């Protein structure tokens, strides 16, 4: 499997080349175009209960689509729903990433996806809900963001503070605490930041340059309200 990001920037696509017999899993609805040698299948990753828990708990789709080059080599074009960048991560089999629910676009067949429960404070205040995706295994993982993706590299014990709504993915070797953005409660909310995550290295944190929730609120003011 080889992947290449086309039209990098706000409206990218990713081209994935598969050898015969190879397959990838992708977010349901992500496929844009494909070679006639590639078959689209729908699969409940992790079995029925796994898929159900993913759907109910993380809000991620119930089905992932499986794209299989069953009749010879082929290529697939994939694109996310929202405007924003795509990033390709090569998983080494040891490192694992926590991915917020809209961040997953596609992954190699050897990539393992499960939903994991977060701690109470992270679930309540972190902005990603109580359950998020934990992605490990070995192979190519393709993530997407709303806006541009920025990678923050943290050395051991190095700290960095991120607005929780801008998180895309972070490696499990990092740890984070949720705290108020400003020292006082009122200032935290009037500053418009609310809660932030204080990450501590080592590891990598991927953040997105736009906040989907704020964008939604901004769009809402232009939608006429029907009586």
């Amino acid at each position, binding site marked *: 499997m080889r992947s290449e990001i086309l039209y990098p920037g706000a409206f990218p696509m990713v081209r994935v080349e598969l050898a015969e017999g190879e397959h990838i899993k992708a977010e349901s609805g992500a496929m844009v175009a494909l070679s006639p040698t590639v078959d689209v299948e729908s699969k409940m990753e992790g079995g029925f209960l796994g898929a159900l828990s993913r759907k109910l708990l993380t809000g991620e789709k119930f089905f992932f689509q499986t794209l299989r080059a069953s009749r010879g080599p082929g290529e697939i074009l994939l694109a996310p729903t929202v405007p924003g960048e795509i990033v390709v991560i090569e998983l080494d*089999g040891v490192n694992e990433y926590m991915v917020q629910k809209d961040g997953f676009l596609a992954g190699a067949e050897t990539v393992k996806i499960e939903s994991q429960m977060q701690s109470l404070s992270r679930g309540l205040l972190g902005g990603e809900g109580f359950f998020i995706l934990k992605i490990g295994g070995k192979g190519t993982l393709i993530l997407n963001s709303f806006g541009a993706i920025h990678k923050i590299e943290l050395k*051991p014990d190095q700290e960095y503070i991120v607005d929780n709504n801008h998180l895309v993915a972070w490696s499990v*070797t990092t740890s984070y605490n949720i705290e108020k953005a400003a020292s006082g409660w009122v200032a935290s909310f009037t500053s418009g930041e609310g809660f932030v995550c204080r990450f501590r290295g080592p590891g990598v944190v991927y953040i997105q340059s736009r906040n989907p929730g704020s964008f939604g609120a901004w769009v809402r003011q232009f939608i006429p309200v029907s009586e």
Partner: protein
Amino acid sequence: MTTITPNALCFGDEFPASGVPCLVQVEGHGLTVTFVSDPAERRSESVPFSGLTVSAGGLDHDQLVVKWAGPKGERTLYLKNADMIRAFRQAAPDHLNAPFERAAERVRQVRHRHRMIWSIIGGTILAVVLGLWFGADLLVELAVDRIPVEWEQKLGESAYRDFLSHQEVVKEGLGVTAVEEMAHRLTEQIPNNPYKFEVTVVKSDVVNAFALPGGYVVVFTGLMKKAESGEEVAGVLGHELNHVLQRHGLNRIVKQLGLVAVVSIVLGDQQGLVGLMKQLGVELLTLKFGREQETEADLTGLQLLHRAKIDPSGMITFFQRLSEKDEGRTEWLSTHPMSRTRAERLKAELAAMPKKTPEPFTFDWAKVRGSLGVQPVVDP
């Protein structure tokens, strides 16, 4: 060259921030770390136990963090493999025992805290659900208590007038005076009675009697014909009056209308109930009482009969006789199923009461029945 499976991530100044996969092996003197990123140039580093520090780390504090100062700066290992951690701990010299214990304690604490928090949440949810389930009756009672009697009367009266307009009401005669005497004797024994009871006799072969909220009682002539004594009808009346006094009808309505009604009543909006009832099509005449309410009306009815010096055994025998000879239109039974336990309960209750000499009614029941069209039975 054999491929090796990495079991740890190593961080250091010359490595990328996401760390490099490596294979950690425990040996007699310390750890051997083999870097696998570049198969052509596989490098190994040996670190003696004496140079290591250990702690817990990672997102869920479930990874073992091993640090040492190497020739190229500080190195940090993140280990997750449980077997590997166990082997390391067994081989480690004494000076690492305390930090290992601290790290293990930290992992246990985090897990314990997670379990605690989730069990508290689970427990709270369960408590709320159970509270609503079992506390619903209490809430309903609270709501019913807040409805004023006048309003209850208005509610009952409209249904009562509506019902009577479609029925043939018996306005005078022996039957009416007999029922009025029973009602009078019973209601004067009710202390602080807030209700102005109104009892109407309706001509119908249906064996039934019912009470509406607010004190409106209907007795069908069918029931009077079936009764062999005035005490038997008085027993039914005692039971029905107590449905009113215990506000069972209101209780049922509020229950049927649900939580919204309860909350709005408790918060002071009693009038909204009429609208709600209309909206949901709750009809007073089709309300059925629950088993507990029936038992309550039985027992309080029995006590009322006792206070009024009306022989309470009439109530029991009439209920039993009706259930034994269920001849078609005995509607009273369909809403008041007579079980053996119910009769036994009443008998036991009656036996426990102090004996009182009953005072007979002033009317002759045989004549009353005769006036309703029942041929007197002549003993052979």
